[in-house]
């Protein structure tokens, strides 16, 4: 019922209702407090106004400790309650489910570039299926932007040089505004677009209609074109670690630390290979800083994430793999826990799930430095 009230924007994600519930609760609570204070002030002011001709004598009231204690501790307790409620929602927002559909977003002055794992690319439009959790991995090519979808109640700053994540679960088909909420220069307020929430079947049709090479496939081409395969080969003469099944695992480094091979780690290892050198290998890799734009990086990372055992390309001539038959891409048709990017239609990739061989417990990751 409340959601129909005109001052609330449309609710189109699973979390929107929770956010609005907290908002309406706080609105009622603070409204009551504000009303109480206002009534008291106006009431006192009128009740105790100076009457013409009356003496301005007033009782000498210095205060009351128990009242002070009361109105310090009661707000305190309420505040802690609000904090817990708000924190719960925030933590939900911060942890995408494992089966979320992953889509990449690159912000630049002043547009949103979106890449689907299947290779579809869009500008200022984001197509997503209804009901399926969607995890966005976002980065920026220049300054800080902010990906804001009011109908989803989600917002995240998009920083250059690192990946941020945000997720949502659309609950209603339709077109919803995307805004850039972080001031980013001249055309900041024009940096907007739409999320298109579609029925899963329509989404599949859309995906297939527009199929180009998948992201991982594009990444594979880059991997070969950039001669990465020369060192990161699967044979015994490899000069660099094999990348199969790397994503999501802990990697031991020279110097004794270990690091989780996540998006940010892969990104860093491409741009600054000397930063975290894998134990047992020489730091011989050159940097690719300046040779790759953000979209290329995403392609390469998508490729590395897709690499299952035995899937490293063999020779550089394999740049154009044979066309593969289309497979059902509807996320709803996939077995649970099988993330879409890992099972898409790259021909050299078998249809077996290529998810990391084990999943780390959350929070078990060794702390690392800033970005």
């Amino acid at each position, binding site marked *: 019922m409340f959601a129909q009230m005109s001052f609330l924007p449309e609710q189109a994600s699973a979390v929107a209702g929770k956010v609005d519930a907290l908002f309406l609760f706080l609105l009622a609570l603070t409204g009551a407090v504000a009303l109480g204070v206002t009534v008291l002030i106006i009431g006192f002011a009128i009740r105790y106004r100076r009457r013409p001709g009356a003496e301005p004598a007033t009782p*000498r009231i210095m205060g009351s400790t128990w009242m002070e204690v009361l109105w310090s501790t009661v*707000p305190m307790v309420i505040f802690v309650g609000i904090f817990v409620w708000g924190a719960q929602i925030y933590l939900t927002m911060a942890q995408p489910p494992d089966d979320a559909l992953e889509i990449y977003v690159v912000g630049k002055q002043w547009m949103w570039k979106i890449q689907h794992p299947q290779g579809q690319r869009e500008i200022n439009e984001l197509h997503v299926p209804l009901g399926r959790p969607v995890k966005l991995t976002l980065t920026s090519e*220049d300054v800080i932007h902010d990906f*804001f979808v009011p109908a989803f109640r989600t917002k995240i700053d998009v920083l250059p040089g690192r990946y941020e994540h945000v997720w949502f679960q659309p609950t209603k088909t339709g077109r919803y*505004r995307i805004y850039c909420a972080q*001031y980013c220069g001249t055309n900041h307020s024009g940096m907007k677009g739409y999320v298109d929430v579609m029925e899963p079947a329509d989404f599949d049709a859309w995906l297939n209609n527009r199929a180009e090479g998948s992201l991982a496939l594009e990444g594979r081409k880059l991997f070969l074109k950039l001669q990465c395969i020369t060192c990161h080969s699967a044979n015994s003469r490899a000069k660099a670690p094999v990348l199969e099944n790397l994503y999501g695992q802990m990697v031991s480094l020279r110097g004794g630390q270990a690091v989780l091979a996540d998006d940010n780690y892969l990104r860093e290892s491409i741009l600054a290979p000397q930063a975290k050198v894998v134990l047992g290998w020489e730091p011989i890799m050159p940097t690719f800083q300046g040779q790759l734009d953000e979209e290329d990086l995403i392609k390469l990372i998508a490729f590395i994430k897709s690499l299952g055992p035995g899937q490293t390309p063999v020779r550089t001539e394999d740049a154009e793999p044979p066309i593969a038959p289309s497979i059902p891409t509807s996320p709803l048709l996939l077995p649970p826990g099988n993330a879409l990017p890992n099972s898409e239609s790259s021909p050299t990739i078998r249809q077996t799930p290529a998810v990391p061989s084990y999943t780390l417990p959350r929070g078990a990751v060794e702390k690392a430095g800033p970005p």
Partner: protein
Amino acid sequence: MSSVIAPYRPQSAPEPAPVSQLDVNYLNASYGVKSWLLTTDHKRIALLYLVSLSLMFIIGGLAATLIRLNLLTPTGSLVTADTYNKLFSAHGIIMVFFFLVPVVPSVLGNFCLPLMIGARDLAFPRLNLASWYVYMTGAALILWVIFSGGVDTGWTFYTPFSSKASHTDVVPALVAIVFAGFSSIFTGLNFIVSVHRLRAPGMTWFRLPLFVWSLYATSVIMLLATPVLAAVLILVGVERLWGIGIFDPALDGDPLLFQHLFWFYSHPAVYIMILPGMGIISEVITCFSRKNIFGYKFVAFASVGIAVLSFLVWAHHMFVAGQSAYSALIFSLLSYLVGVPSAIKVFNWTATLYKGSVTFHTPMLFALGFIGLFTFGGLTGLMLAALGLNVHVHDTYFVIAHFHFIMVGGMVMAYMAGLHYWWPKITGRLYPEMWGRVAAMIIFIGFILTFIPQFVLGYQGMVRRSHVYDPQFQVLNVLSTAGASILAVGYALPLTYLIYSLFRGKKAGPNPWSATGLEWQTPSPPPTHNFAVQPVVDCGPYEYSLQSAELGADVHGN
């Protein structure tokens, strides 16, 4: 008035001062431009600040006017996007760094603090004058930057936009703000040493007026936060000039580090703005309800508590900026802590009215308006501090409305209350009371109309710093602009009648409000050295009940 037995009892009674003393005051003790530009009298320096800050307020207000006019239509038909960005940057920079932060300490604080503690001047008069010159240097520089092309970074100067992408005069703007910062450091230093060393005999810590307590707490923030701002702005300048990467992720820097250091100043700066306002309200509420403040020590310690806690909450400006979720949890919890002392103050002011003898003079109307608006602004702060909710409203007009409620609804209302309260002391003249009340009402109504729609806009998803917006937001934006025009009339009124009062206002006499503070025990305007004889204090600051009891009915006959 001859029988006044004021709670502050000067050693020799504050009889109507001899004619010769009344004649010579700080305003007419000497004439000429030089006697003003080289003055070390805190009261004259306060007036120098008053004039320069009013000018800055008008310029910042003009920028706001253009912004609101541009937002009348969704397509932003008045100015170009670049101009719009420069306008809101100019508005933010001028209002925050060159008006709100210095205004109450530098004008009312400078004027009143020595009088209220019974001192002949601030501890370092020459430093005080120097701080005005430093401020003016910064102000001149920022005006030059704004009128020679402007700066388009917003007042927050987020990197890497400010250090790499912006093509405007960022570095001179940074330098100007560093100047303004040093000016407030000097002022804060002066206040702290004065409160410690120059209190009149008998003026113990718990007999200090609450305005002095709040100025003291403000000074602590000024001294300990401003240097961080100076340092981080210098780093941005170095990065920009030198082309290196302190905060540039392409060179292994971290843009969030800038935000941490920036908000370490800029969040406490909000309390630099609001704390002195709270002090003013304590003075005005007690005076116009003829009551002791309810819970003096709690209000005083709440000021100090706010000063300390304000430093522990800065990263609530960064909940969606990419800081760690654990850090966000810590800062959210701490943000709620700082709400407690503010709540204590509001409840105590309300309780002070209880069984008072309330009159509705202009300062009181402004003060009551302050309590209402500040309460509302503070309560919306609770919403912003709730993590899950913050994600949605962050960087939207909800935030804009929230901080305008605190800074304009709170701070500017309080400043108006203080200005009207001490105006007779400063100038020796009374302003037309009726016009004052009208202005207070107009400002209150205009303010509500301007900023309530912005809360709704923000929750509906209109992002801040928008030159153009979606058509469904237009109705509320037009409403807001309409409110802003009422607000503009409201602000123009005091400017007019206060200047008018300088020439035609009735003589005020030393104590038109029958107030208890030491500043009212000396003629209006005060003589150059404030007091003819050293005052001695033997009771608390708000003994209106005792005063009334001893004086009988005619105490408030004005």
